[in-house]
C-alpha cells in the first residue's frame, strides 16, 4: 500500500502551522541580520537560516505544556518555535531590558521558563547533560513530557554527549537527542573530525535507536519526530536523531564561510525548507500564491513589530548588573 504523501497526511491546518513556523524563523533571522549590520546587535550572532525545518518541524510536534526544548547557542529558531514572544527575543538580541533575559543573555542565551525553553547554551556540548536532567525531572515527577535536546555536529565529539547518552539509557529518560548536522562546526567540515559519517550509528553504542533524517524538509522532520515522540511517551526511552541540514550564512555574522563551495550551498538552497513546504502545499492545493503572500506579510509585520519593540525597549538599569547573581 502506497505511503500517503505527508502533505496530505497532515492537512492544510497543520501544514500552515508548520509553514508559519519556518517562515517566522526565516524572516526573523533576516531582520536580525539587518539589525546586526546596523550594529544594533553585537557579538556572536548565529543565524538559523537554512535550518528552519529542524527546529520548526521538531518543536511543532511538541506539546509545550508538558514538553521541553534545550538548544545550543544557535537558538533563535528554537526560541520562536517554542512559542517565545518575538519581541522578547529581538529585544534580547538588542540587549534591552525588554529582552527575554533582560538583555543579560543575548543571542546565545534565550530562555523562557514558562514556555519550557531552557536555553540557549554557549558552550558546545554543555547543554546535553542539562537536557538529560530535565528528562530526569519528567521521569521523577511521573509526567509524560519529552525533552528535545538540540546540538550540532561539532558537539557530538564532546564527552558530554557520550556521558549523557549512557545516563539517559540506563535511567530510561524521555529525551530525544537531536544532532543538527549542518555539515560544519565553524569552518570544519564534520567529515574531517568525525571518525564515522553517519552519526545515527553512534546511538548503537548506548543501545539507543538512532535515525538519520532529511532535515531540510519540515514535513519529514515533523512526521519523524511525531512518531518518535509517541514512542518515547509510551516507553520513556531516549532516542537519537541526526538531522541532515545546512546553514546558508556563515557560522556567525563575522564568518565569510570560504571553506565551502558555492555549488554545495546551492545544492541545499535548492531544497530550501520554506520553498519545499510552500511547493508541497501548493501542489496539494492547500496554499495559493495569495495565501502565502498574506502569511508572509503577517509574519513580516510581526518581525517589524519585534524590531520596533526592541528599538523602543529601554536599556537595563545599571543596578541590573548586580541583580540575578543569586536568588535572594
Amino acid at each position, binding site marked *: 500500500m502506497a505511503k500517503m504523501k505527508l502533505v496530505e497526511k497532515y492537512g492544510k491546518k497543520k501544514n500552515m502551522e508548520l509553514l508559519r513556523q519556518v517562515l517566522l524563523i526565516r524572516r526573523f533571522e533576516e531582520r536580525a541580520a539587518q539589525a546586526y549590520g546596523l550594529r544594533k546587535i553585537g557579538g556572536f550572532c548565529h543565524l538559523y537560516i537554512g535550518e528552519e525545518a529542524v527546529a520548526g518541524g521538531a518543536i511543532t510536534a511538541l506539546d509545550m505544556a508538558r514538553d521541553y526544548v534545550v538548544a545550543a547557542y544557535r537558538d533563535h529558531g528554537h526560541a520562536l518555535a517554542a512559542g517565545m514572544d518575538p519581541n522578547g527575543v529581538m529585544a534580547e538580541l538588542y540587549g534591552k531590558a525588554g529582552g527575554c533575559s533582560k538583555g543579560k543573555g543575548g543571542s546565545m542565551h534565550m530562555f523562557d521558563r514558562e514556555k519550557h525553553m531552557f536555553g540557549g547554551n554557549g558552550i558546545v556540548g554543555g547543554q546535553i*547533560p542539562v537536557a538529560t536532567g530535565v528528562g530526569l*525531572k519528567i521521569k521523577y515527577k511521573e509526567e509524560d513530557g519529552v525533552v528535545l535536546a538540540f546540538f550540532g555536529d561539532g558537539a557530538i565529539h564532546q564527552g558530554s554527549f557520550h556521558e549523557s547518552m549512557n545516563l539517559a539509557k540506563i535511567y530510561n529518560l524521555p529525551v530525544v537527542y537531536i544532532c543538527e548536522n549542518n555539515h560544519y562546526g565553524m569552518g570544519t567540515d564534520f567529515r574531517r573530525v568525525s571518525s564515522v559519517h553517519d552519526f545515527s550509528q553512534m546511538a548503537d553504542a548506548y543501545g539507543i535507536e538512532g535515525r538519520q533524517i532529511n532535515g531540510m524538509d519540515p514535513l519529514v522532520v515533523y512526521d519523524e519526530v511525531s512518531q518518535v515522540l509517541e514512542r518515547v511517551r509510551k516507553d520513556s526511552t531516549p532516542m537519537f536523531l541526526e538531522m541532515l541540514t545546512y546553514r546558508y550564512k556563515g557560522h556567525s555574522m563575522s564568518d565569510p564561510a570560504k571553506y565551502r563551495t558555492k555549488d554545495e550551498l546551492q545544492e541545499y538552497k535548492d531544497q530550501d525548507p520554506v520553498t519545499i513546504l510552500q511547493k508541497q502545499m501548493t501542489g496539494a492545493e492547500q496554499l495559493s500564491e495569495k495565501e502565502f503572500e498574506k502569511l508572509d506579510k503577517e509574519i513580516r509585520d510581526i518581525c517589524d513589530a519585534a524590531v520596533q519593540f526592541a528599538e523602543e525597549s529601554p536599556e537595563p538599569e545599571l543596578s541590573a548588573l548586580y541583580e540575578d*547573581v543569586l536568588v535572594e
Partner: protein
Amino acid sequence: MATITMREALRQAMEEEMRRDEDVLLFGEEVAQYNGAYKVTQGLLDTFGEKRVFDTPISEEGFTGMGIGAAMAGLRPIVEWMTFNFSLMAMDQVYNNAAKNLYMSGGQMKNPIVFRGPNGPAEYLASQHSQALQSIFAHVPGLKVVAASTPYDAKGLLKSSIRDDNPVIFMEAEMMYSWKGEVPEDEYLVPIGKADVKRAGSDVTLICYSKPTRMVLQAAEELAKEGIEAEVVDLRTIRPLDEQAIYDSVRKTNRCVVVDESWPFASVGSHIGWLVSRNCFDYLDAPVELVSGEDVPMPYNHTLELAAQPSVDKVVKAAKSVLYV
C-alpha cells in the same frame, strides 16, 4: 543533645530534608547500594528507595549537568562528588551552567542544587587525590560555598543548603567524618553566610574553616599556655563571606592569622588576608599572616604529606610572629 559523628550529622540532614520535601533526591557514584564510598549516605537507599537515591556511572560531567538540568526544571538534587578532586571533570557545568543560569536568563532559571563530598587532603593519597579546591569554587559569582567544621554546623548548614534556591558547593573532609560532636534532637538550621566565633580571645584572631578549625583550636590552647588568648573565627561559609565577623574580631585583637588548607596563590586564605589588610588597615599592629598548604602538589610519603599541610606548630609560630614574640 546527642553526640554523633560528622558522618551521621550529614546523613541526618539529608534524611530530614528528603522527608520534608519529596523533590529532594540524591545521586552520585556509590551513594546508593554501597551506602557511599565514605558511608555518608548510609541507609538512605533503604529509606527512600532507588527512585530518590541512586548510583551513577563514573561520568562527573554528565551527572553534574544532569543535576543542574533537573534543578532548573524544579527538583532539588543533592549530588555527591565522591571527592572534590573529581569535580574538575565537571568544572564546565559548575562554572558555565550552575553559576550563570540565573543571570543569563535574567532571573528565570534558578538551580537549587547541592554539590557535596569530601575536599582536601586525607592520608597517603598523593597529588591527584589530596586537593583542597575551595578557592576555585569561591572565585565564582553565582555559587555559594559552605565548609563546616563540626557535626552541629554541618547538619544545620547542609539542611540550609538543601533548602537554598541557589547552587551550593558543600565541602566536607574525609578526616572529619568520624569526628564527634553534640547535635540537638530537635530540628534546627544554621544560616549560610554567618561565621561563628569558636573561641573568644583578645590577643590575636585566627581565621579558619572546615577541617583545620579543630587544629587551630588546639593551637589556641597551646598559645593559651603561654598566656596568649587567641580568638578563633570559624567562617563556616566561604561565599558569601561574613566579613563583618572577621573585622569585628580583628579590630578587637589588632592581629590576624588566616589558616587555609588550599594552595596559597589566589586562594581563599590570601583573599581574606587582603580583605583584612585593607579593611582593618588602621587597626593592624602586624601584617596578616597566612598558614596555607605548601605551594606544591601533595606528595604520597606521609612525612612529606604532613609537612605540606597547616599544623598546630605552624599556626602557633604564625600567631607569635604577628605578636612579635
